[in-house]
């Protein structure tokens, strides 16, 4: 098997995913095109050598539809020979894109592939695809015990006894870590300022962070999923799956859940051979990756089995991983993962995560992989594992090793 290496990683800053957000006026095709162009320029890339562009998009409709990966390659002015494929595995799409890029390289069927993702949540809102059969075909909704993510997040907190204070403390740490990382320019290598048509910078920082937020500020926020759970009837579904739970404690708020943002990211993956040919320096080797399905109503307990599977694939154990990066979809997801795998807070999400900086669905997986690679390089550590919980009950994990 050929080894797959990461040669570069670029991401946009994350703009608040609403009409007042700095990236709202930028179409998603522009976000991802600037990422592709940056990869090209930073690496003086002969794009005719790129075998594929794999992009994650979770709402692949409207201006994000119609295989935006191929559109982006064309619009970026890349060689016509570069194909593109858009994929969707909800929140892990960006990491899956990198894994599929790596898989093509590992199998010897490709030499150089871009994996990444894009999501303009302010322009193509969650649910724009209509929810699919899962969310809108009544017999499917019924038979799959559909419940929205927030219910699963609160169910995790209820089942494993995380209090509101536990969740808020975690969220507060995320904000603190993210703002420290920014103030120490820890993301400098990867973040690309998004420019407008005239070259003015529209955004060069993650604008969702609330560095000043205190625990007291977080404590006053109202639980976000009470109405949905109780009046919407989803709590009843959760109890049908988890009949040993007496009632769901609705504890997650906008403050301890991931932010809705706009953004794009790309990771350049290739064989050692192509790197040598093009004069590129590998930054990390992709050791292993894995995806799993998990119980869909609680939905977000997949990172643990995904991690275990990826570790098995790599012949490694938790102790062999220096840094973990788990997407902060909800605070309870991370707390449960840390508890289940006995991972200390010091080794996970050390520069904050989506609670502070936001979760641009299709792009996040590629972003957090790049973030943890930057941190390996900064801290001189060796191995890292990036993982995400995924809608409909799935998980995805990737292990990298710094070169």
């Amino acid at each position, binding site marked *: 098997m050929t080894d797959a290496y990461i040669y570069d990683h670029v991401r946009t800053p994350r703009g608040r995913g609403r009409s007042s957000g700095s990236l709202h006026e930028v179409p998603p095709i522009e976000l991802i095109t600037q990422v592709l162009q940056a990869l090209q320029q930073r690496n003086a890339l002969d794009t005719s050598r790129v075998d594929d562009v794999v992009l994650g998009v979770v709402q692949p409709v409207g201006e994000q539809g119609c295989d935006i990966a191929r559109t982006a390659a064309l619009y970026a002015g890349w060689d016509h020979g570069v194909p593109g494929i858009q994929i969707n595995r909800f929140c892990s799409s960006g990491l899956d894109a990198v894994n599929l890029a790596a898989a093509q390289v590992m199998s010897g069927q490709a030499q150089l592939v871009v994996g990444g993702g894009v999501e303009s949540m302010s322009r193509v809102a969650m*649910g*724009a695809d*209509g*929810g699919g059969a899962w*969310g*809108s*075909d*009544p*017999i499917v*909704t*019924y038979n799959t*015990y*559909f*419940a929205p993510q927030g219910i699963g997040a609160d169910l995790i907190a209820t089942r494993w006894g995380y209090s509101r204070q536990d969740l808020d403390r975690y969220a507060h740490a995320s904000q603190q870590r993210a703002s420290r990382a920014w103030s120490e320019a820890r993301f400098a290598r990867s973040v690309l300022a998004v420019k407008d048509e005239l070259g003015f910078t529209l955004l060069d920082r993650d604008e969702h962070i609330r560095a000043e937020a205190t625990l007291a500020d977080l404590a006053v926020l109202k639980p976000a999923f009470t109405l949905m759970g109780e009046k*919407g*009837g*989803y709590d*009843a*579904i959760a*109890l*049908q799956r988890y*009949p*040993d*739970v*007496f*009632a769901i404690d609705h504890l997650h708020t906008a403050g301890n859940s991931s932010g809705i943002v706009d953004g794009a990211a790309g990771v350049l993956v290739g064989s050692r051979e192509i790197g040598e040919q093009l004069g590129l320096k590998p930054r990390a080797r992709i050791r292993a990756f894995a995806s799993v399905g998990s119980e869909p109503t609680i939905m977000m307990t997949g990172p643990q089995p995904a991690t275990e599977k990826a570790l098995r694939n790599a012949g490694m154990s938790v102790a062999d991983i220096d840094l973990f990066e788990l997407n902060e979809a909800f605070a309870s997801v991370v707390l449960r993962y840390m508890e289940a795998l006995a991972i200390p807070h010091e080794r996970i999400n050390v520069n904050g995560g989506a609670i502070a900086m936001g979760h641009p669905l299709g792009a996040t997986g590629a972003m957090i992989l790049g973030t943890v690679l930057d941190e390996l390089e900064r801290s001189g550590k060796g191995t890292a594992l990036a993982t995400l919980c995924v809608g409909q009950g799935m998980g995805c994990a990737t292990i990298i090793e710094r070169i």
Partner: protein
Amino acid sequence: MADLHCSIDADGVALLTLDVAGKSANVVTDSMRIALADAVERIAADPAIRGAVITSAKNDFMAGGDINAMIAFFDTLTDEQQVYREISRPFTEVLRRLETCGKPFAAAINGAAMGGGLELALACHWRVAADDPKVLMGLPEVGIGLMPGAGGSQRLPRLIGIQKAVPLMLQGRPQTAKQALDLGIIHAVVLPPDLLSAAKHWVLQGDAVQPWDRKDFKFPGGAAFQRAEIGGFFNLAATSAAGTTQRNQPAPVTLLSAVARGSVVPMDAALRIESRLFTQLLMNPVARNTMRTMFASKGACDKLARRPKNVAPLAIKSVGVIGAGLMGMGIAQVSAQAGATVVVIDASQAQAEAAKQRLADGFAKQIEKGRMKADQADAILAKIEAASDYARLGDCDIVVEAVFEDRKLKREVFARARAAMRLDAILASNTSSLPISSLAEGVAAPERFIGLHFFSPVDRMALVEVIRGHATSDATLAQALDYIKLLRKTPIIVNDSQGFFTTRVISVYLSEAMGMLTEGLAPALIDNAARQAGFPVGPLALIDDLTIELGYHASCQYRSDAGAAWVEPYGFRVQAKFCEELGRKGRRYGSGFYDYVDGRRVAWKGLSEVYPPQAGPPAVEAIKSRLLYIQALEAARAFEEGVISDPGEGDVGAVLGIGFPGYTGGPFSLIDTVGIAAFVAACEHLADRHGERYRPSAWLRARAARGEAFYRRAAAA
């Protein structure tokens, strides 16, 4: 034609008059369907006929499917594809032919158009209803475990939009002519004498193409899978269906599926989808069990099918109630509502007056909420006299005792009542468990003594258990039934025994649930499992609300009554522990199986120290079947002992009286649906594992060995 008269007027408008032979209401029968199909072909083929008006010669327009026939032929349904072809499709195809035959059809809705009746009207190109209170329209099939099966699930949404049509079909609430007009279900409402002429007038200039068969048809409000709003609507509706039915009743979600998937295809395909899903519901035992218990058996109870014959009906004008508590006042209220004058006796005039005032205060709240009209409340209160003097019972035709469950107190009350009452008047006890025959001992005119077990709250609970003591005469039974009918309640006839039927059945259920605590099962798991099994409230939450103490006292009372014959109920030690040792006697006392924080029920953390939790994954399925089977087994024992003599009555009693899950049809239907042999085998297994209380009797084992179900199978058609 026998079921459908056809005449053609001078203008060439055919008048089709439904009059199904041998039925009090028009129902869909084979012969009616064939007659309609023939008429449609004749109208389509005859150039002299310009179109048709469909109306009815009966009081109703059409009542829909023939439920009794459906119950009867259920046992003959074996092959899905055959049922689809022979049962689900034929009427649908006739109606589709009617709406596409090229001639305009108008429905002149002269009376109730329910189910298939409304579906027939919806297939017509134009609908006009008479402005008459008896005109009601609805698609109530989901309530009996089915769904509209003759195009209703497809035509109604195309007419008024998915978001208006779905609630009408899920809830089945009948609409008046005016409401139907506002909703867009019908096109016009006219005075009854103008009904036919309005319909004919339309036919003469009417268009024979339905809106949904036009090229430019736009689904009002949007079809499924096309608008996020509709997708969200279906998501919430499916979630709600899963929650409220606990996945035990397939009809609601199947209807949603038919509407959603049917909405995006042309009508012919949509009707095939409907027919397929209807077929699946029809072949599901839930529909048969629901129809048999809630329609056929309940109907027989309501009609007093088992009332002793040759007893003159008793005109009940005056009712006495002794004991002005919640039950007594409830009985007084429903009696007054039924038109009787009522005397309520309590220990003192002041207590009786206060009770009447509480009733009036309750009415005032109802009036405030718009659920009652002031004049109705006044009329009821005017008929109720509060008193303490037993002499006021002198004119009563029937007197119902509703005092505490205390033999000594009851004995005193009976003696004083009898002394004041006419000897030919009936004396009834509302005891929920004390054997009637022993209560009757020493009471004058024991042949005029009977048990009438009302349920709380009396004004909302439909069931009354009528308990016949050893001395109760046929005439007393018959006339007590007349009284229940007057109250518009549903009586079941039960022979005397400790706990009669319903109390006996629910007691083993509550006892089993409490006993499960000793096995280390968590209250949340037990209560959630019970809800999943279809009980409206978890048993432990219910006991906490009633207080654990109440059941404990009843158990102790029974222990002293039964003497050496007493067998300790499974939950007895739990009752004793909570009442005697732990001092957690129920919600009213601040704590019970659960804790109560700011009025909210929460788990009690200390329980795991009293009963160490069972390890392993939650055995929810096992708990569900235990809670259902222990009751079905007790019902079978009551049947064996002759306490209940008709499985239909037993099922009606259990479903209406104690909230036994309706989708099962009741405990006897449940055993038959599981299969009596499989049921007995499962109980033997449970007995080996959990104790002898699950052991089937020799009688039941023999019955199972013979394969003799509780309900007789309908003869193969």
